């Protein structure tokens, strides 16, 4: 448990651990009736054959995943999928993350630091109780700025406010990487565009197979249709049509709600039986 509703699992997946690079993802299926869930690989320990995933319990499938305990097994784990992040020496890189994006950006920040970059990390949370992984992020960053929407800890405001301050104080920023809610990635990209700072965002559209076969995850980048699973998941933030992405993320809202309600009822029913 990393925070309220946010969990971190380590999975035994030797082949994937051996090959996975920062920025790639896996697809999981929990049970025979389950859906295919894409999740970013948050860390790997190749020698132990272990990968880590982090997820927020929002819908039925993530809640069901959250009920698993140490030693349980997951029916299917497929990966590593997607293209790895571009890791080279850019100079100063600002890593921006919010909420569940925080654990996902950790391996990127670490790899960028190892590649000789100066890494400034900006993390945003709604309030101090939701702050995640502060020490870990500190260890892989030259500078760590934490913001909370309500000012209960760190700087009051959004990650974009902190990023604006970094740019305005005269730090020469060579690259920005943003991982987190779509609206956050959109605002970060909007902010950096007039400054012509290359900005990379990691997109999380609805996926199905994750291997380029179905086209569920299509996104519009610079007027072209791309598949996030095989062409991404990282894209130039200045070219992404975030509004389309936000719309497409809502395709199954009614079904997701129905599924979750049903799941909650089943859990309650089981609870009664157990009692």
């Amino acid at each position, binding site marked *: 448990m990393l925070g309220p509703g946010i969990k971190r699992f380590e999975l035994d997946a030797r082949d994937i651990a051996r090959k996975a690079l920062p920025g790639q993802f896996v697809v999981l299926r929990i049970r025979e009736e389950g859906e295919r869930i894409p999740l970013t690989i948050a860390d790997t320990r190749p020698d132990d054959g272990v990968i880590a995933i982090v997820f927020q319990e929002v819908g039925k499938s993530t809640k069901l995943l959250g009920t698993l305990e140490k030693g349980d097994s997951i029916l*299917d784990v497929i990966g590593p999928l997607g293209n790895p992040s571009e890791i080279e020496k850019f100079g100063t890189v600002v890593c921006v993350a919010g909420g569940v994006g925080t654990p996902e950006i950790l391996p990127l920040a670490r790899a960028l630091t190892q590649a000789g970059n100066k890494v400034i990390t900006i993390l945003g949370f709604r309030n101090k109780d939701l702050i995640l992984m502060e020490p870990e992020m500190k260890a892989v960053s030259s500078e760590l700025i934490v913001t909370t929407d309500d000012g209960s800890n760190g700087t009051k405001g959004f990650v974009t406010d902190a990023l604006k301050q970094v740019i305005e104080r005269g730090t020469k920023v060579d690259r920005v990487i943003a991982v987190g809610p779509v609206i956050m990635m959109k605002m970060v990209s909007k902010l950096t565009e007039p400054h012509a700072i290359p900005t990379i965002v990691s997109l999380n559209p609805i996926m199905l197979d994750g291997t380029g076969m179905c086209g569920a995850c*299509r996104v519009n980048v610079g007027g072209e249709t791309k598949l996030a699973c095989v062409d991404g998941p990282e894209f130039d933030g200045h070219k992404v049509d975030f509004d389309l992405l936000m719309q497409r993320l*809502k395709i199954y809202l009614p079904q997701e709600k129905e599924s979750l309600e049903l799941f909650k009822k089943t859990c309650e029913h089981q609870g009664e039986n157990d009692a």
Partner: protein
Amino acid sequence: MMPKPSPKRIPMRAQKPEKRRYNFDEVPFGYSPEEAMAEAQRCLQCKKPSCIKGCPVEVDIPGFIGKIAEGDFWEAAKIMKRTNVLPAICGRVCPQEIQCEGSCVLGRKMEPVGIGNLERFIADWEAEQAECVKCEKRPPTGKKVAVVGAGPAGLTVAGDCIKLGHQVTVFEALHKPGGVLAYGIPEFRLPKAIVQREVDFIRSMGVKLVTDEVIGKSRSIEELFSEFDAVFIGTGAGRPWFMGIPGENSLGVYSANEYLTRSNLMKAYLFPKYDTPIVKGKHVAVIGGGNVAMDSARTALRLGAKESMIVYRRSRKELPARAAEIHHAEEEGIVFNFLTLPKRYVADKDGWVREMECLRMRLGEPDASGRRRPIPIEGSEFRIPVDMVIVAIGNSPNPLIPGSTPGLETGKHGNIVADPKTGRTSKKGIFAGGDIVTGTATVILAMGAGRIAANSIDEYLKTGEW
């Protein structure tokens, strides 16, 4: 002197259209033993059978049909399985009218022998027996073959290579084997239990099947050579084509691959028992005229569409789908809009598709495919109200392996270049076949390519010559 065959074939009993359009159960019921024997007796047992030449895997058609006519079903199944490891599937999905049945001598004057129906009968009969036909295997060669992709091409290579005495491991990226047989073709046309049965048969011969393994990602083709002596790539047609017209990313616009994968592989038609959701359109337009388009339109109907239509830019005559599929679709009330081309999609404020603007077409001179080229009629724009669109215009080859295998020659569409006579690619020890080589084609053509590649693999493993 044989009695003169009746001019008409024995029809296959099927679910009534008005009933089956609401369920996912298989449409035809198959022949009874009596029906099969009667149909088999229509075969003239030609001395020089042209039907065999019409079959990409060269099944001994008069041979197995002759045994059915005698009532010796066991022997018929043995003959069948000598050349075809997936008969229950072929009997259901092959375009027989342009292959074996299209070459049947009877067909010149009357209805050709129902070869597909008989193939299906014998495969289903065998499956009901306590024991299944065992294929003879050559003594072990000690050589190892890796097959990438558990679709029709890969499964054929696996079945053939294991019979030839080689050890075979099949790697499948999805969680279920079968490829398009599992994710693409719907339950009402090819029950998944039958795919499972054929896969189990191949497994029972000793083939090792590894699912969830994305070759090109978790392991490269080159890495496979540390363990295997030859590699066959049958990864199929991957990336779905879109037309590139405005509004195509609107909500409610699917690729056929996604729509059918949700319904077939993920069983979204059983939502919420199964977790994967699917949009249930009421006014559905399917773009395209192939089998995949028919499958999509008929699936939409079964998922509750009031109106499910095919939108095709040529005329009925040019439809590439199997005759039986077109017939079934028409019976079920699928609406066909011929000579129609979508121009753009119009969405509402939330991004959901609400209308499609189309152009009327006329047919010009034949093009490279031999079919008459559709030409838009200027100023003929008109609109059709829709709340769901399924784009079924084909796929380009899956890029994962060509992109991760240096030195592997590819064609201009990203397909792997392989010699059609041997399946050999530009790299020693690597063979390829099926849609990854030819682009979108049929199950049986992929199986034919698999058959050719398997023989060539065997020769390569014996001689080491490339």
